[in-house]
């Protein structure tokens, strides 16, 4: 109980600090603009954007599970990067791992350059993509997605990947290990896809 209260207080403190920092950057941007110093104003706006990106990233990470099947999330691997460091858009990543035997990587990239490519694939008639038996279109919570089975030179499964474009973003899952397609799709069901698409657009 004591730990829960401590965690709650920590979250409140972080949220308050973040809001304070955002307000400070907005105030800096306005005063620099009023003084005709557009570059300083731009710098403050970029910092404010970073604060927003961090908030969106934290909200996405908060709705992700801590465990998926036998894999526990690796806290140190949680990443949130804003548009000022990725030259694409917001980037959010989490990894689950089972003592190195298997792992699952989740990421969301907004303004991703891959969206067009994946959307083109998803728009193609099935007959045009049937030549690659390792790729297929599936639906996840109503969203069309591209599922790919990864195999080695002996045709043994080495993993699965999923790319799901939505709005201006791309949600990706990358599983490394030996499993079946059904088991991978079962992992996928533990990710609240719709909720994530509502938060990170």
């Amino acid at each position, binding site marked *: 109980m004591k730990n829960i209260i401590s965690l709650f207080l920590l979250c409140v403190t972080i949220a308050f600090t973040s*809001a304070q920092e*955002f*307000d400070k950057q*907005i105030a800096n*941007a*306005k005063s620099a*603009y*009023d003084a005709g110093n*557009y*570059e*300083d*104003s*731009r*710098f403050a*706006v*970029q910092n*404010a*954007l970073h*604060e*927003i*990106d961090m*908030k*969106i990233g934290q*909200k996405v990470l908060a709705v992700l599970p801590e465990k998926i099947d036998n894999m526990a999330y690796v806290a140190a691997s949680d*990443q949130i*990067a804003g548009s*000022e*460091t*990725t*030259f*694409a858009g917001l*980037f959010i*990543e989490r990894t689950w791992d089972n003592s190195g035997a298997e792992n699952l990587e989740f*990421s969301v*990239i907004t303004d*991703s*350059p*891959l969206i*067009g*490519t994946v959307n083109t694939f998803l728009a193609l008639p099935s007959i045009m993509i049937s030549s690659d038996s390792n790729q297929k279109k599936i639906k996840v919570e109503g969203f069309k997605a591209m599922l790919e089975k990864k195999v080695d030179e002996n045709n043994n499964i080495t993993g699965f990947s999923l790319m799901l474009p939505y709005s201006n973003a791309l949600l*990706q899952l990358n599983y490394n290990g030996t499993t079946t397609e059904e088991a991978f799709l079962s992992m996928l069901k533990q990710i609240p896809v719709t909720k994530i698409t509502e*938060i990170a*657009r």
Partner: protein
Amino acid sequence: MKKLWILVGIILLLSLNSYSQRLRSIRHKIGDAMIDKVIDDAVNDSDNENTDQNNSSTDESSDKPAQKPGGSGLDNSLDDVPDALAQASTEFNAEEYRNARTSLRKALRTLEIKIGEQLLVSLPENVKGLPVETDADKVASSTKTWAGLTIHREYKNDDNWASISIYNGTTSGLATTAIRSGMYSSYEEDENQKQVQIKGNDAVITYSDSDGYAISITLGQQTFVAIEGVNIASEAEMIAIAECFDYEKIKKTLGDQ
């Protein structure tokens, strides 16, 4: 040229070994995709040209009337910065983060266009006998292009032509790192490419019979300048053109160090 530059930047980016662990991870995920995107865009451009040609022949046989010139076009007016900031603040406090992001990007666009316009005013109106072509002046915000804030100006006299393109942003920073570390140069000895200094700034000059001269200059932490010259008589003349620009002022206007 911009797409080519972006492609070069991406290739350099992918080969940068000294970057931080975090960016390395991100680079893995989107690096290949960026190359695909640039190539796709280039292909789409040529496809669109073909489509336009096809459409013009189709339109001749349909009842669709031709568009008369003089339409009001799109509203590209700049958003008011204080209004956008106030809007963003309200949205952030209401936890409408997506809307707050959109409002801030509007403010950012206005600010960057103003910075670009300030920079254009400060650029020379004539470089070594080539007068400015003000109609070709362009400013693009980082909210619209991956290359970051982009400012472009051209100079022309008969067949002699020069241009300056200034890029400021994250990708520009990566390109400057590549040039300073020598990674911009090819691994083979190339007689049409060499490293030079322009007013004390590291640069690479290249020449080709088809495109003429190009000088890539690194400025500060996140600024990259590309100067091109067509039908310029010599390397010395091209460097003289490049030396017409005040790079300290460019850096200062962009807030770079």
